[in-house]
């Protein structure tokens, strides 16, 4: 337990401003943040600036990247501009991933903090409930949810968010279990703070570092998740997304590799930039684990 004690002290010392400075000194994390900001800006403003619509025929079919007659990244089997698709395709995926990440984080926080703070039968009950959701393979579970409630941006967000909250719930519970025995929590209780106040004002801020790191992981998982569902053709067929471009062109992979390669690279770049931010946060909050 001495290990944990040291880790807490150092994260308290470096918390807030110190952690932010640490983060800025971490080159991969800064690169990740810059790339992520660029991706978000391109997704928001890019389609308007580029002009060509992603779902409309722009040139002849199967033009390769760099082909003089066609757009920069080539066209697919219907002559749709792949670059336009890459620029536009992030909108739905990033939106769904962000909201689904927040949803699962929120659910996990509520369940995990109640279980960890109160313990006893509340803990036992909530953890058994969490296990039910952990037992069902997440992709299969969200496929079934979409099968039952139908596709559409909000329904997809719900179907992804509902399958991911077990991880933040377990993490929150572990942090609350650890922190509720600390001196400063006992002090807060001694001066008569209510349970709600102790949970939200005393314990939660101290539990935030690992939860923030987990939140970045959840967003990456949600990005891959939505891309996977779109690739399988399980989401709204009228929205253009990186996954759906790849799914629609799957049958032509052998002849037109670029139709699949570039949207996929966009997903990797997005996921990697968020993962680098998460890694940077992890190092900033917990310098002892740096490089592991």
């Amino acid at each position, binding site marked *: 337990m001495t290990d944990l004690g040291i880790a807490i002290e150092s994260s308290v010392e470096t918390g807030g401003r110190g952690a932010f400075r640490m983060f800025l000194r971490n080159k991969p994390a800064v690169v990740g943040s810059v790339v992520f900001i660029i991706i978000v800006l391109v997704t928001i403003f890019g389609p308007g600036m580029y002009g060509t619509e992603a779902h409309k025929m722009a040139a002849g079919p199967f033009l390769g990247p760099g082909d003089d007659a066609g757009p920069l990244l080539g066209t697919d089997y219907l002559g749709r501009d792949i670059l336009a698709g890459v620029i536009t395709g992030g909108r739905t995926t990033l939106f769904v991933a962000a909201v689904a990440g927040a949803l699962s984080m929120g659910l996990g926080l509520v369940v995990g903090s109640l279980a960890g703070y109160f313990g006893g039968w509340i803990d036992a009950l909530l953890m058994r409930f969490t296990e039910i959701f952990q037992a069902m393979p997440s992709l299969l579970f969200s*496929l079934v949810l979409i099968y039952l409630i139908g596709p559409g941006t909000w329904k997809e967000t719900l179907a992804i968010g509902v399958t991911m909250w077990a991880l933040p719930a377990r993490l929150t519970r572990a942090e609350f279990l650890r922190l509720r025995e600390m001196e400063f929590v006992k002090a807060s209780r001694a001066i008569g703070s209510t349970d709600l106040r102790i949970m939200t004002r005393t314990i939660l801020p101290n539990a935030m570092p690992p939860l923030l790191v987990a939140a970045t992981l959840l967003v990456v998982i949600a990005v891959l998740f939505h891309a996977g569902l779109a690739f399988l053709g399980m989401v709204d067929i009228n929205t253009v997304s990186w996954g759906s471009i790849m799914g629609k062109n799957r049958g032509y992979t052998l002849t037109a590799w670029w139709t699949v390669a570039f949207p996929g690279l966009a997903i990797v770049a997005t996921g990697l930039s968020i993962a680098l931010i998460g890694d940077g946060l992890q190092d900033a909050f917990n310098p002892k684990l740096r490089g592991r």
Partner: protein
Amino acid sequence: MTALARSIGIRLGQAIGLLLAVVVVVFLLIQIAPGDAALYLAGEQGVGDAEFLAKIRADYGLDQPLLVQLGTYIGNVAQLDLGNSTYFGDPVLGLILERLLATVLLAGAALLFAVVIGVALGVFTARRPESPASHGVTVMSLVGFATPVFWLALMFIVVFAAKWGVLPVGGIEDVRYEGNWLGETIDTLQHLILPAISLGIIYLAIYSRLARASMLEVLESDYIRTARAKGAHERVVVYKHALRNGIIPVVTAAGLQIGNLLSGALRVEFVFAWPGIGQLMISSIFRRDSPMVVGIVIFSAAMVILANLLTDLVYRLIDPRIRVGGTR
């Protein structure tokens, strides 16, 4: 009864309870979802009058109270009856079992590849923490974490099957080798390479980093210093003393990620036309074959629960400290 047997008994009971809870949740989800099953079944027959609807409700037990329906459903699942596929007309469980071997082969090969190479990489780089290879593992694990498995699979097809033509594009066997068992086995293994590596490489990225972190920690511990001090050979220290403890987090992760692995296998099966459970799930969704879809979810949950139970039992046998108490 020994303490070990009792704790195993308790875990077994918990696992059965958990599976029961999954069945209840799935049943409730179907009830919450919009749509009337009787109306749907009538639509399939092309008849829609009230008398026919009432007959369907009676035939399928849809006129019973919800609790009775739930009881019947649980009773059927307990007798291994997951209903009949509306598309094939055959029992769901039989259809799943027919495809189980292909999925287990794919997932097993991917897991083996990931654990063996991942642990080897982790041990190698843990001994040289500042080497380029060591930083390479960190970078690779991040890239692997952010890469969609189906995209990787497609890129492998482009390079190895289309460009170089060294490995088959998809499927599990070639009709050429029918009847020749040796040819068939080699042929299936050839078909297995690309799907298994596409799926395994993602986990390789995770496990190599995990193994490295855990080996770094173990190599710093007191008992390793003692082993070195008494003059044990470095190879004995690393592979005999350190690896035993260093591998535990990898085994934990592998055991807990069986569900995750199944989800990944589903996408890989789709890309490579691998005739497993994932492939069946996706085509059943497009056919709106509800008993099949629900059956596969319950079956996969049972597999995940079983895998977690086995991991737990293996633990109790390996590590005496968690033999009696809980692991969590």
